[in-house]
């Protein structure tokens, strides 16, 4: 039999089902004789203390091994000790003479019901934490030992209605080969745990608990979301093969991280990184990249509660530039306004902020902020290969004005004898259609450019990328976007100036062959996208990618482009 659910953690598994039914409290309405109030209050306090002790123990156990998971239990300790809940439970015992388990049930259930109805998915998911703490308290009241998935005797597919944080706290990772549940979605606790342990998982399989049998053999295809019960011999063979192919593919794609980025016919493509904070982890990624295609400097401005000083900026830029040594770093100057604001900088509200004073426009408006950043960047330029990249350029005048300001800062530095690299390259982000359409003119005025596909896409489709009502109009595969990229890339290639892509599209495995086919040789992306990008490149020859780019340019609709790309890539695999 075939059953469908949401595949939330990819993989394939075949094995025996272990039906996991956690402790479910059975509560009936019970009251006690009023003269026993003190005794019951004391017993409630003891129950609360022993529940907290259990949590402290798990928390201590996890804080070294898995600090992320330890946080969940720190939150549970907070819930156990919550002032409002404790007060209400004590009141129910004291004034209504509810037995503590009934008091706990009543108070917790009221709140669980309330947050389960929240419009916000983040809050709704938290109901699981409260459910979990409630059960722990009631179990402790009844003096029942905790049962969990920490010791399993053989590899199993765990089937459950839902997995709560405490069920998975000490999960026997060696023996859990897959997780299937009746409820849950991509953001639920079970999904997060499954992904972090790389355990295949399908959640939200309707009425799973009514048909699944303990000990039966199943196939879990957590790529497509299929659960197969009573599989035939052929299916078992087929999925065993698929499983080993999938594992091989994952392993290979990880191996690609260190590989040289070459197309199937050996053409070298430069892979850049998009970085933000400039911390050691990001700098550590320099070994498998060729340049930094986007250093978002906003982080520096957004992390503090005041404008970063020239010295603070200088230290961060110096660290990044010396970390990447001879690899170029495209430092994008402050790009705020529209969706990105600074708490300490009071900017006037605009009717249409995405078409307003943002990016370079804001820097022209707040010239001191801009000059401070340029000074810090130029001073740091002696430690590496700095390239200054200007965001939100919409006309040639923008470039000329920015150049004049950069020259001014340079001469100020020279006057007081502060050294800087006089060969610092100046480039622009191409993300506004008016700039894209004069790419040939821009190429004459700058040293390099990078295409910001996210903003470019929202400006050419006239669809706000943060407005959920128009997501269907924000089409990353709109043929117009590819036509425009084609024009920008050929203009820069003709002028012999470096051109790269640093938007989402640059790290999208499906789009990469098209971008390279359009003539791009420099792609910048987040570090997590690098391995699969290198793997994709090695799958295609230049001729194949050129052909794909030609085809895509001639397709009328975004959906046609997607269909074509899925088809061609599947054939390659």
């Amino acid at each position, binding site marked *: 039999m075939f059953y469908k659910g949401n595949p939330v953690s990819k993989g394939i598994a075949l094995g025996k089902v272990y039906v996991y039914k956690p402790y479910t409290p059975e509560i009936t309405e019970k009251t006690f004789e009023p003269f026993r109030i003190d005794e019951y209050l004391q017993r409630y306090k003891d129950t609360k203390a022993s529940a907290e002790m259990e949590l402290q123990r798990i928390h201590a156990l996890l804080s070294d091994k898995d600090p992320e998971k330890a946080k969940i239990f720190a*939150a549970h300790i*907070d*819930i156990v000790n*919550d*002032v*409002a*809940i404790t007060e209400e439970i004590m009141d129910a015992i004291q004034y209504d003479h509810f037995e503590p388990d009934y008091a706990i049930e009543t108070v917790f259930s009221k*709140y669980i019901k*309330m*947050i389960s109805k*929240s*419009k*916000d998915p*983040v*809050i709704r998911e*938290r109901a699981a934490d*409260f459910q979990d703490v409630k059960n722990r308290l009631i179990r402790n009241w009844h003096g029942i030992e905790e049962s969990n998935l920490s010791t399993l005797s053989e590899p199993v597919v765990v089937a459950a209605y839902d997995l709560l944080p405490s069920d998975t706290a000490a999960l026997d990772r060696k023996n859990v080969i897959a997780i299937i549940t009746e409820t849950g979605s991509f953001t639920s606790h079970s999904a997060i745990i499954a992904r972090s342990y790389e355990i295949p998982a399908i959640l939200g399989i309707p009425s799973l608990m009514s048909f699944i049998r303990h000990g039966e053999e199943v196939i879990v295809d957590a790529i497509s979301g299929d659960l197969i019960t009573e599989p035939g011999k052929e299916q078992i063979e087929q999925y065993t093969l698929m499983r080993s192919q999938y594992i091989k593919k994952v392993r290979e794609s990880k191996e690609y991280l260190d590989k040289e980025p070459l197309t199937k016919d050996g053409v070298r493509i430069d892979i850049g990184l998009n970085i933000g904070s400039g911390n050691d982890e990001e700098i550590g990624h320099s070994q498998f990249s060729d340049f930094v295609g986007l250093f978002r400097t906003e982080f520096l401005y*957004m*992390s503090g*509660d005041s404008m970063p000083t020239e010295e603070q900026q200088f230290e961060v830029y110096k660290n990044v530039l010396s970390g990447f040594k001879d690899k170029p770093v495209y430092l994008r100057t402050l790009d705020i306004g529209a969706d990105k*604001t600074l*708490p300490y900088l009071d900017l006037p509200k605009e009717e249409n902020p995405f078409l307003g004073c943002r990016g370079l426009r804001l820097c022209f408006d707040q010239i001191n902020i801009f000059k401070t950043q340029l000074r810090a960047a130029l001073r740091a330029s002696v430690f590496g290969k700095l390239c200054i990249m200007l965001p939100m350029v919409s006309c040639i005048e923008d470039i000329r004005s920015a150049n004049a300001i950069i020259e001014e800062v340079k001469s100020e530095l020279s006057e007081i004898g502060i050294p800087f690299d006089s060969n610092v390259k100046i480039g622009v982000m191409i993300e506004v259609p008016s700039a894209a359409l004069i790419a040939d003119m821009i190429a004459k005025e700058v040293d390099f450019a990078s295409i910001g596909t996210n903003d470019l896409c929202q400006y050419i489709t006239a669809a706000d990328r943060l407005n959920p009502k128009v997501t269907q109009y924000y089409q990353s595969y709109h043929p117009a976007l590819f036509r425009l990229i084609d024009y920008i890339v050929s203009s820069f290639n003709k002028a012999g100036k470096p051109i790269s892509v640093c938007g989402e599209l640059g790290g999208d495995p499906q789009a990469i062959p098209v971008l390279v086919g359009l003539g791009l040789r420099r792609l910048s992306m987040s570090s997590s996208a690098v391995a699969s990008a290198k793997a994709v490149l090695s799958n295609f020859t230049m001729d194949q990618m050129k052909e794909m780019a030609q085809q895509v340019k001639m397709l009328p609709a975004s959906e046609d482009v997607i269909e074509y790309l899925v088809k061609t890539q599947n054939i390659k695999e």
Partner: protein
Amino acid sequence: MYTRKTTIINKTGLHARPASDFVNAAGKFKSRITIKNITEDEGPMNAKSIIHVLSLGMGPGTEVELSAQGEDEKEAVDFLIELIDSGFGE
């Protein structure tokens, strides 16, 4: 009694970690502190209780009112307003 208003600016709202940070910070003061969701006219609720804070469902853009009564009321409200305005480091 001391009262001030502000607007939630961090992108996840007063939900996961920011809610815990907020409640822990409120718990450090002696005064009784309440929080009210002005936008949806809900509350006031106990600002020292995580469940009360969560039940107000305060996403980004929500206007809130903080009130405190007690010896450190002004300090408490000012501190918590500043915490909300800082965006909880998001």
